[in-house]
């Protein structure tokens, strides 16, 4: 099992931590945001519901924008804009 952090052709980033449980999704989310520039987009896919609550508060406190949130086939997808 491996996490994926990729830069897409359109300049957005993708973090896939499906299969991971606490605290990995929140740690990888924080570190991924640290690696990208202000205004850039990170699409995050994970399937650990307990991490979602923590990630939302982390984004809010740090001033990042959770632009979109959806659930698809047991996966949670966050579209985050670095603030």
């Amino acid at each position, binding site marked *: 099992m491996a*996490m994926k952090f990729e830069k897409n052709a359109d300049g957005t980033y993708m973090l896939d931590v499906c299969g991971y*449980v*606490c*605290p990995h999704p929140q*740690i*990888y989310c*924080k570190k991924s945001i640290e690696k990208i520039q202000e205004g850039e987009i990170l699409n995050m896919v994970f399937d650990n519901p*307990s991490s979602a609550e923590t990630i939302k508060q982390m984004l809010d*406190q740090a001033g990042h924008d959770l632009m979109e949130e959806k659930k698809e086939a047991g996966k949670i997808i966050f579209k985050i804009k670095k603030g």
Partner: protein
Amino acid sequence: MEEKKNQMWAFAITGLLIIISMLYYQANPYYMYVVAYIWFGFAYGMMLQYGRFCFASASRDLFAAGVPRMAVGILVALIFFSLIQATLASTDMSTFHPAPFGLHTLIAGLIFGVGMVLSGGCASGSLYKIGEGNGTSFLAAFFGLCIGQAIFVDVTWFNGLMPQSWFDNAMSKGIPAAQMTSSFDIYLAGYVWDQPVVQLSKTAAFSGLPGISKYFIADSLINALIPAVLLLITIYYFYTRKGFLKKRAKATGGAATGFRDELAGIWSMIMASKRTTLMGFIIGIVAGLHIFVMKGMQIKFGISNFGELLTRMGHSADTSIKGTVFDPGYWYITSQEGQFGGWILEKFGWNMHDNIFFGLNNGLPEPHRNPALWMSSGIIFGAMVMARLSNEFKLKLPKGELIVWGLMGGILMGVGSRPALGCNIGAFFIRVAGGDPSGWLYGLGMVTGAFFGVKFFNWWSDRKMAKEMANF
């Protein structure tokens, strides 16, 4: 379609537990004692899952992500639970008992704290996550809290570390030789049992307070409320104050530096995760109600331990040589899982009755007659129902590194829950709310352990991120 299927599962699980409860009652009304544990466990499971209520998350997310939601939730739960504990103590309806404390309390908390970060959940958190279908939590709970804990209390591997004085002291206690064979036995009888036991309301400083005020002033106000409020203020100051005041100043178009702004900031932090805070409030109340109900049952049946009822029903083989089984009378997690592990190991020919933990104190009941084990099962089923109703149930088998973290963390939690006679619930939450300051010592150990666990995971994830970014 998926939603409908999940709802059917939720109804099926709840219905099964109702049928089990009725069968127990039909078998013997004494089993209502077990049924009470089942449904309080079920309620805890639902609340833990809905609130994403995990003690590991409290310190871990604070250190790893700067998020205080869970620390706040636990402190809120503690405040309400301590008030109810004091009410119950003042009406002689409490089953709470403080524990011997010393340096071992801190060390045990430290080991447990590292373990809960590695495995991804505390003792209660792991159970509710099993209910969500999390295989890593199952590994941690089964191999660490069940099997690992049972082995830990029964082996002689640590005899070389025990001072001679502990051996001599343990031998002088008059315990039957057949029940004192392991290193943990020497540690318990030779060291722990002689350590001080403190409940603030019963100390010389507070026992003279008039009437029932000593329970509210000493146990609740001094031991729980004031420290909890101070911790809330400290967390606010270091983690959310700066961001909140900046946002508030921007919103109001002026400087936000007044006392009202600070109070608004603390309130904002408390309400940042409504579901966690709300569950903290309800868990605090339900945990108190649980004590009330168990005490009521004990009065009704004229017992102080469920082992007495098992003996009356002809199941004395389930009990320890004292006729007791593990029956905390309140929310507790790890000992019953150790019993389950011990029961399994006995099926493979391992004698688990030759120690103090099982043989002298807690017994080894058949799992379906183990009241506290039913509480743990209730937590799993309650969380499963809630996860199904929220369409959040997903069976996730542990893979790769998660197998290693789950096993390592689980074993550390199993080991860390024994020396201080409890885990994040029994040794921290219950004790702090009951007026036993040793709960804070265990909590300090847990937080310190979590800090080191997070340091390790930060290092680990930095390595993996660097590898991924090499392709950019």
